[in-house]
């Protein structure tokens, strides 16, 4: 097994909190259950990671498999990264028959034709999210596995979530590959950025529960039963403003958990 791969696996395992290591390795599925049983997960992480590397050597892990472990880690700890949202446009109106295999092939082909030294990995999740990990190299150097770009794409939607990597110069190439693979013709960055990937998804996919009027309204959960009897001598200065804000928020986002707002920027 390559030294680079060994070191990469060792460092990836070190990032994982100790009580999550076993379950993450199980999700990875590269080491057998029998092999996992031989690891003592209660010792210090340094030793745990050394043992994992040793077992990976037994199974001759290569960089592709190591990259999958990295995707699994980043999927679980997506909040550690900063995500930007991009919107794509297309001309045709034909409903698309999205084929995952075709998407992957086109994406890889576009990238590889421009840059030979890249590591590309895909992983699909139950909610139709496709995670793409790309490690970038140059025409003369091997890909840097420690600064990969991440893309999360839900098929047949115009939105792409990209985790901004340090190497901004690779962004145009990444965008091009996405357009070719997904059959869109234009892409632009939206004014939406956050650490919370789920909040971004909630906003663009409108997954928050909105309040709609209908003939059979679903039972709105009673807000803490007792009406508040406030001493009238205490007057809240901005009470009407507060109520207005609450009402508008409730109207738009509903009663469920709200998307997390990290920062707001106003452009005049």
């Amino acid at each position, binding site marked *: 097994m390559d030294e680079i791969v060994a070191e990469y696996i060792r460092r990836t395992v070190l990032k994982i909190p100790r009580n999550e290591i076993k379950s993450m390795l199980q999700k990875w599925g590269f080491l057998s259950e029998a092999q996992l049983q031989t690891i003592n997960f209660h010792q210090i992480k340094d030793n745990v990671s050394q043992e994992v590397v040793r077992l990976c050597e037994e199974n001759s892990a290569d960089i592709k498999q190591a990259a999958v472990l990295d995707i699994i880690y980043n999927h679980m700890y997506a909040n550690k990264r900063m995500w930007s949202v991009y919107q794509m446009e297309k001309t045709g*109106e034909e*409903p*698309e*028959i*999205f*084929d*995952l*295999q075709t998407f992957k092939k086109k994406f890889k082909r576009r990238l590889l034709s421009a840059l030979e030294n890249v590591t590309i990995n895909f992983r*699909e999740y139950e909610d*139709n999210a496709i995670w793409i990990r790309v490690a970038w190299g140059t025409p003369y150097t091997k890909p840097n596995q420690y600064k990969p770009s991440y893309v999360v794409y*839900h*098929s*047949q*939607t*115009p*939105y792409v979530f990209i985790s901004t990597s340090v190497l901004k110069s690779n962004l145009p190439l990444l965008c091009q590959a996405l357009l070719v693979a997904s059959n869109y013709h234009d892409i632009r960055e939206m004014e939406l950025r956050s650490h919370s990937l789920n909040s971004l998804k909630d906003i*663009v*996919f*409108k997954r928050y529960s*909105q309040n*709609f*009027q*209908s*003939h059979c309204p679903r039972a709105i959960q009673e807000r803490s039963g007792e009406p508040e*009897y*406030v*001493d*009238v*001598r205490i007057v809240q200065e901005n009470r009407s403003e507060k109520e207005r804000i609450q009402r508008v928020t409730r109207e*738009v986002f509903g009663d469920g958990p709200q998307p997390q707002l990290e920062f707001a920027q106003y452009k005049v």
Partner: protein
Amino acid sequence: GVFSHLEMLEAQAHEAGRKEEEKKQQEEKLASLKERVEELRIQRDKLQAKVDLQKKRLSGKERIVSDAAEPSAGAVLEWKIRSLKGMLQLFYLTGISGKLTKQGVCFSISTAYESTYLDSYYLDLLTKPVVRIHRHSVPVFIPLEQIARRYLQTDIRRFLSVLSDHLNAYAGRKYQADQLQEHFSDQLEGRLQRNSLCNLLAFNYKVPSGGKTFPFSARLIYKDICGSLPTEVMVSCTVKAPERLEETAAAHSELFRHMALHKAFCTFSSTEEKLD
């Protein structure tokens, strides 16, 4: 000490203030309800007077004429009930219902697949100055803008009907794929490949035959996104297999073309049991 005494006094004052406020609010409520009762009593008396007057008029006129000229309150009521029942039946059958809002209309489209109720989707429409969509809960991969561009301004019924077709078909396809994953995961090999619209499904599954199991692969394409049955099906055995299995593949292909996916799986697990 003094401080705790002050705190206690403050708490007492607050409590007393609260109780007084409570009492005042209840009294106000009671007064307004009494007023309302009075209003309703006056209204009732007025209506009663009207009914009495009506009765007198009817008994005074010729029977035949009065029956033809003035529909009785009973008949009007019956007509209203019938048309209401008709409307409710329409809503029940189409799954589309609407409610007037301050600025327009809010429609709800319910989806169902073969007697199972699925999700409902909502559209909040503004009607002035032109009809347009204010908010909605339609998933982003349903071509709502396209459908709205074509029909919203000119024929709102058609708009709702086309959108309902899209949503119901999507809900039906999704339901079949979910059911397959939930109930037949032991027959599936690996992941079920699907997409957001559920208009392409690809999976590998095991077919038992003569004591052994053979790996089959299936690919279902739903070109018509208003349909919940595939337009193209390809089933094949992934290894070199005896000829009778080619027939099985063809049979499965036919089944998938014409029957809900999870029901198709039901039928071949039961036929296998019969054969064994």
